[in-house]
């Protein structure tokens, strides 16, 4: 089973198309498509292993008990005496099988998901001349749809994302349920309920420990502070003893001291000493920190594929002369960047690189070159292409300057050389 999958993954996603030897390109944006099932697979494996090992110990324990009762079989024994032991053994074996099966099934499901995704994404790279353009269009829709869904999920619009998944027929391609869970936990934290978060922490404990996360300490600390605020000091002490000390003692002694300090001194004093622990927006901050931790667990970049492509798409259009253009209706703005609705996004982006200057005629907007449409400078400072100049010519040695609204001579129309 799972042995085959890595090679299958490598084979199915030859990056950048069938003949590409590129190591990385747009596929990097698909990171979450694969990262999440792999992370889930990891968690399932760890939990499965724990279960399987636990049941194995139980079986050997049961077996040992039975052996003890039988004691090398020298005389016949009463049925009733060992019936219980035997049944216990059988029960444990059943448990062991169930644990093994559950773990394997859950893992297979994730692996299936990964393989399925590989195939779907691979399809996008296999757009050949024959299947264009219908196919290319569909694939592009699929790709953009996926980016949009990721973005909506990251922004917390799970409901919309869910419907979009259904409308685009993306079931199995995107882990909406993971986001749903995460956002539920986030919401619970904002509502001052730490239980879902603690459950989540428990599920991802091994990964969090690897990351050196202090999330659990922070969550438990909030629980304690809540008790302190409500004046439940003995409960708070109990809580610290039971939950906080074991996790915080070794790695986060400072946090532990702070929490104990909050319990020991009066509420007023504690508020003065540790304002961040008692801040009114502490739950929101905690929720924010939780989301950051989630990103770390799943190894996501802080930005989404959508945001990357959109901002890059805008940046390659941006020139230093772009500015929001409100003089014409939105549909008539020719430059994407100059649309007043896009400009807020474009404002802080770098400009496109332009190696060779491209000069457009101020009047017609057509590209100037050295043969057909030679650029000329008018006294106003504007550049006009030869074609426009010909149109503005009003007789021998006379050209109409449309900006200054005067007649000028040929000598005032200056040839420009762009190198």
């Amino acid at each position, binding site marked *: 089973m799972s042995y085959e999958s890595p090679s299958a993954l490598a084979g199915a996603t030859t990056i950048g198309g069938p003949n590409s030897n590129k*190591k990385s390109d747009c596929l990097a944006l698909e990171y979450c498509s694969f990262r999440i099932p792999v992370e889930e697979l990891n968690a399932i494996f760890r939990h499965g292993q724990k279960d399987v090992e636990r049941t194995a110990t139980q079986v050997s324990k049961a*077996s040992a008990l039975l052996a003890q009762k*039988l004691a090398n079989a020298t005389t016949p024994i*009463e049925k009733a005496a060992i019936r219980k032991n035997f049944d216990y053994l059988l029960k444990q074996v059943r448990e062991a099988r169930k644990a093994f099966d559950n773990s*394997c099934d859950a893992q*297979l499901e994730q692996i299936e998901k990964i393989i399925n995704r590989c195939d779907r994404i691979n399809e996008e790279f296999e757009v050949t001349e024959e299947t264009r353009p219908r196919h290319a269009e569909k694939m592009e829709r699929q790709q953009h749809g996926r980016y949009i869904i990721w973005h909506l999920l990251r922004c917390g619009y799970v409901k919309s994302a869910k419907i979009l998944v259904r409308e685009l027929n993306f079931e199995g391609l995107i882990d909406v349920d993971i986001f749903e869970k995460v956002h539920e936990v986030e919401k619970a934290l904002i509502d001052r309920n730490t239980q879902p978060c603690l459950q989540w922490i428990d599920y991802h404990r091994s990964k969090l420990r690897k990351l050196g996360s202090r999330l659990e300490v922070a969550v438990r600390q909030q629980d304690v502070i809540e008790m302190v605020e409500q004046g439940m000091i003995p409960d708070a002490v109990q809580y610290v003893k039971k939950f906080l000390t074991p996790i915080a003692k070794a790695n986060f002694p400072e946090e532990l001291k702070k929490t104990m300090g909050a319990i020991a001194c009066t509420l007023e004093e504690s508020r003065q000493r540790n304002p961040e622990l008692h801040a009114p927006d502490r739950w929101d901050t905690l929720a924010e920190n939780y989301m950051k931790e989630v990103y770390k667990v799943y190894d996501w970049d802080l930005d989404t594929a959508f945001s990357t492509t959109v*901002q890059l798409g805008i940046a*390659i259009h941006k020139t230093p002369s772009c500015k929001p253009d409100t003089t014409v209706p939105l549909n008539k703005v020719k430059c994407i960047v100059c649309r007043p609705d896009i400009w807020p996004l474009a404002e802080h982006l770098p400009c496109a690189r332009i190696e060779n200057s491209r000069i457009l005629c101020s009047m017609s907007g*057509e590209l100037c070159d050295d043969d057909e449409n030679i650029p000329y400078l008018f006294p106003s400072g504007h550049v006009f292409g030869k074609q426009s100049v010909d149109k503005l010519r009003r007789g021998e040695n006379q050209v109409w300057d449309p900006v200054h609204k005067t007649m000028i001579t040929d000598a005032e129309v200056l040839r420009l050389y762009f190198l």
Partner: protein
Amino acid sequence: MKHLWHKNLISLESSLEIMRDELFDNAEGREISITGQILMEGASERAKKLVKESATCHKTIHFALVKLQKTLDRNLDTFPWVSFKLKRNLVYIPPGKEQSLSMIYDLLMTDGLNGTAEVLKEECNMDKYNVYDPYTLKQIVDDLRDGEICSSLEYLETWHPTEEKFLRSKLQTQMITDCIEMDNYERAVDQLKLFKRPWEDERLKGPRLLGALLIGKTSMCDNRYRDLFDNGNREDIQHKMTSFFLPSDSPLRLIMRFGTQALSQLSEWGLSGYNSSYYVENELPIEVPVIPTHSAFTCPILKEQCSSDNPAMRLVCGHVISRDAIARLTNVLRPVRNSSRYVYRHSRFKCPYCPREQIMDTAKKVDFSKWQNDDDFNEGGRKMETMDEHSPE
């Protein structure tokens, strides 16, 4: 592996069950014989061993898992390239977030994904954007995707927008070329019968399309008919049709297409080894070809794009360089940093391209911005439009 162990464990379970039935339930007497006990002991040993082995075996999955993770990390980077720092996080920071959401909303609507668009609008309380008739729009978009043009034509006949004729011709052409592509001769004829006079203005086009229809699929490669099969046509039609319903069209599709393209170019560039050394502040590291909508002048001396801070200047000889470049040329020749403005403006320098010597004051500022006038606007606007029609590819 799973099946093997599943089978092993199942057989273990059933053998234990049989043993239980045989020894406890079916056997007579109240005691279990010595043989029975030995059998039981053996079975329990076997169970212990087997379950332990299964656990060990389960552990080996870990190797495959690590391998999978490594494959993933080797093939996919978390972030494609480093030099371009995005200035905004569209997930968190409000103006960018809202903007991106409204763009998504527009795109969803133009793509016929009404269901999602409605929910999204609800979820993020957007009341800024409104679509006039979402259901007709959805119908039209869905139909167009399937190659159906009836709903679009009906709309055109009811509302008679200014571009009616033009769109009709485009729609019919698209429909027929679609039919040719799919070898569906009968449907094309049926559709042609349904709608009269599609090509009033282009008399030649009708017979040509019919000719293409007669030849069938091969006409796609035929020089006489090839221009009828325009890949951008479908998108163009959809764009035009949806624009009747939305206050503004959605540029998101185009932006994302360019973005993906640019991204693959950039990551290729990043992998080829030139990194930060070629990186200019506030400018992308490589050029990605787009349809120009603004003049862009890169000073040939400084290799910097000119802007209002550093405008382009025409020298007496006609060559154009940036003002900063001129300033540097004069400074090199005659350091006048502390002298008066007069001296600065009258300091001499040589054009870097021709031997002509001149002073700063004779250079003329070049303004690349588009000049628009009411009289000429229509003409200029029309020209831009014809240029844009070929541009989306």
